[in-house]
């Protein structure tokens, strides 16, 4: 599959995850979010950027349970719960936010 980002073609796998993580940019994130039907707010970006930092440090995309806990620790209890995260990313915070962040599918997601 491929994604058209302002005339530039970006390769993705069949589920829409970026083939090459290093190609990621804010524009690509935007394009993926549009395909996912998500209107990116500051709160969305906060989670996406958090995931990118987590990946940078640990080389994995965290499972949703781990993500929820880690977000709570970093951004506060009102954000570290699944209700908040599912409101931002209705099809699953780990899956959708990872996709927008240009990361591989989280380990443990089938």
């Amino acid at each position, binding site marked *: 599959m491929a994604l058209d980002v302002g005339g530039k073609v970006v390769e993705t796998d069949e589920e829409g995850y970026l083939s090459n993580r290093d190609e990621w940019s804010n524009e690509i994130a935007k394009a993926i979010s549009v395909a996912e039907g998500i209107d990116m707010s500051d709160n969305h970006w906060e989670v996406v950027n958090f995931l990118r930092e987590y990946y940078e440090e*640990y*080389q*994995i995309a965290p*499972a949703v*349970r*781990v993500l929820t806990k880690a977000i709570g620790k970093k951004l506060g209890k009102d954000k570290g719960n699944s209700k908040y995260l599912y409101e931002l990313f209705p099809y699953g915070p780990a899956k959708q936010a990872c996709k927008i962040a240009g990361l591989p599918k989280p*380990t*443990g997601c089938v």
Partner: protein
Amino acid sequence: MSEEASGVVKKFLYINRKAPYGTVYALESLEVVLIAAAFDQDVSLAFFDDGVYQIAKGMDTKAIGQKNFSPTYKALGDYDINKIYVSKESLDARGLSKDDLMDLKYEDEDDDWAEKDSIHIVNSEELADLMDSQDVILSF
């Protein structure tokens, strides 16, 4: 599954005995551990023989063109996997000590999130007792 059986927490021990690169065992084991962490079981990890190199500090995989997955071991604490046993004999035989291993820690939820060591150095007798107390042992 009966209601009774579904609530049973079993003791799982994952044994790692091979060098981190050169075979796929170390990475496969790590992925299985992370996936299985979702099932809320009582999980321990043991590292012995060349497996101790899996959690050694300062790995650099550039020259072999493989992804360095060492940083991922540091995420184990986030996954509530905080019982990591390392064989003293295996370390000694390789001229290694605890200082050569990564600083793997976890935050204890029941103790005001205090940071604690996940790594325990054990001798072969303690390792044998550990294995004896498990319900399931998976060896990689």
